[in-house]
């Protein structure tokens, strides 16, 4: 078998594996129930909660990840490698472990003070946002760093020599040039936040009409053997995820300015 053929077969098998998983859901799918389940108040609440929390978590993550990514991409500073390594922690750490660590933190003295004097996180909406933020912030920084790495620092050097401040050079040159990569990173992080389960369920719980996001709703529906609801929720989640991933491809495929 030729090398080319072997790689193509591997790609096809992997594609079929995921397609098969999706199609297997359709075995138990009853179309007439779709709208009924979808429009149920608890499901609509879960969808809305997931989208709002994921959007907030993504905005917060981008706010901290973009400057972090810039520092890692462009600057030299002591401990850079250590910071860089820690950013990957959420990627290798189980989400449940991450949620548990957050839960434990809010039982420490500092955590209690934050809860009492500031914002309630445990089993509350801010807990969902925090759990999703913790899961995606490192990933956002990593993806954005990759986007910034692709832009030569010489553009900024030239912009500064022409009279732009560091902020000006970033705003007028680096940001527009890395825009597509950054938007791709944001969409991916948002999609990951929407699908986040482990950390969210551990920190915020699974209270209906309060902290039940789509992934937790899937878990609860499955636990109560409600297959129809489970399948419909999975399909909605997959639909949102695939739309987001396709949007990333569209952003990446936009033609170059000529």
């Amino acid at each position, binding site marked *: 078998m030729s090398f080319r053929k072997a790689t193509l077969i591997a790609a096809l098998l992997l594609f079929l594996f995921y397609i098969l998983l999706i199609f297997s859901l359709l075995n138990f799918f009853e179309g007439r129930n779709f709208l009924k389940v979808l429009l149920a108040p608890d499901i609509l609440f879960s969808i809305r909660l997931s989208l709002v929390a994921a959007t907030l978590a993504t905005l917060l993550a981008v706010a901290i990840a973009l400057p972090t990514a810039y520092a890692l991409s462009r600057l030299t500073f002591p401990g850079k490698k250590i910071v860089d390594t820690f950013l990957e922690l959420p990627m290798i750490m189980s989400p449940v472990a991450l949620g548990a660590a957050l839960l434990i933190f809010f039982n420490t003295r500092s955590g209690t003070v934050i809860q009492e004097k500031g914002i309630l996180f445990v089993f509350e909406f801010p807990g969902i946002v925090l759990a999703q933020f913790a899961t995606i912030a490192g990933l956002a920084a990593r993806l954005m760093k990759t986007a910034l790495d692709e832009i030569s620092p010489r*553009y900024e*050097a030239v*912009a500064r*020599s022409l*009279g732009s401040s*560091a902020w000006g050079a970033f705003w*007028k040159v680096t940001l527009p040039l890395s825009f597509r990569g950054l938007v791709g990173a944001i969409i991916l992080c948002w999609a990951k936040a929407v699908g986040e389960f482990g950390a969210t369920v551990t920190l915020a719980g699974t209270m209906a009409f309060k902290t039940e996001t789509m992934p937790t709703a899937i878990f609860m529906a499955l636990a109560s053997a409600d297959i129809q609801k489970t399948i419909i929720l999975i399909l909605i989640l997959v639909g949102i995820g695939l739309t987001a991933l396709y949007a990333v491809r569209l952003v990446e495929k936009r033609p170059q*300015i000529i």
Partner: protein
Amino acid sequence: MIEIQDLNLTLGNFSMKNLTLSLKEGAFNVLLGPTGSGKTLILESIIGLRNFQSGRIVAAGKQIQNLPPEKRGISYLPQDLALFPHLTVRENLLFGLKAQKKFSGTEESHLHHLIEVLKIGHLLERYPQGLSGGEKQRVALGRALAPSPGLLLLDEPLTALDPALKSEIQQLLIGLHHSMGFTALHVTHDLEEAYLLGDDINVLIDGRLEQSGKREEVFLRPRTLSVARFLGLRNLFPGKVLKAEGVEGFIKVGIWGREIMIPSGHTAGPFSTEEVILFLRPEEVMILRPRKPIKESPRRNILAGVIERILDRGTHRWVLFRPTGLEVHLEINLPNYVFRDLGLKEGQEIQVAIRRESFWVIPFGNRPESRVQSP
């Protein structure tokens, strides 16, 4: 005058100690050196993109080393030009003027003049991706010169160009410099380019400024063996100063078992009795025609020997000459018409004469690894 004074910079294993470099106002200064000699580090230090341990950068009498890059009034043209791909040619040209808020009539007419000289008026609404290599070079030059910088830094911008385009841009640079009189520092490792463009040439080797001066001075009168070897000079022979004083205006040097009186003006230093290197330009060796009288000076230094090899170098003939009884070779460059006239052949026995003014004496240096004699 722009001066870099006592620059000290360490980066990994590379270090630069107490480097001082003066750039003449309105001159096309060249910083010439091999790869890894520290040229780009100096350039980044001047722009303000590289922190150095100590030193001063003085422009127009003011220290600017603590100013951010945007306040230094120095334009930078990198090797890849870094034209902003998301901006049109017009926006690229206006970038510096907008950033520096220069909107007066003078700046506007200067920009129009640049656009005209660079012949880029028809490109203004296009994006850099659609431009040819030469057009990109012109736009990048225009963008760098539009804000009328106090200094233009060029970091090997012509290195990757094909010979025809390189020649075109070199001519453009010379013309622009003559008409506008800006101060430039051009960084390159290309000897030919340095000679063509540079009013003043500064040779940097291993983080040390080995020699600065007019181009003829640097190329024809290297002050150190390192410079001579970097410039690719052939015919470097070991000798010894036998008498540094005594005969007015001359030093006595022992070479090839004979003594030669060399004018003091043809030496790179005051010398005492010491080992030295004698450099002899391949164009300066005269091949004697049988029965043709010669002047007195070359008559003193006649060597008989045999031609070992002849190569056609296109513009001239390269002749490898081996003097009888000596373990050395002399390389001789002959104009093609002279070569044809003499009818030389490999293996032919000839006589060559060398004027004492054709020698240039440089210190031996303290580099035992430097091979002196050409094989």
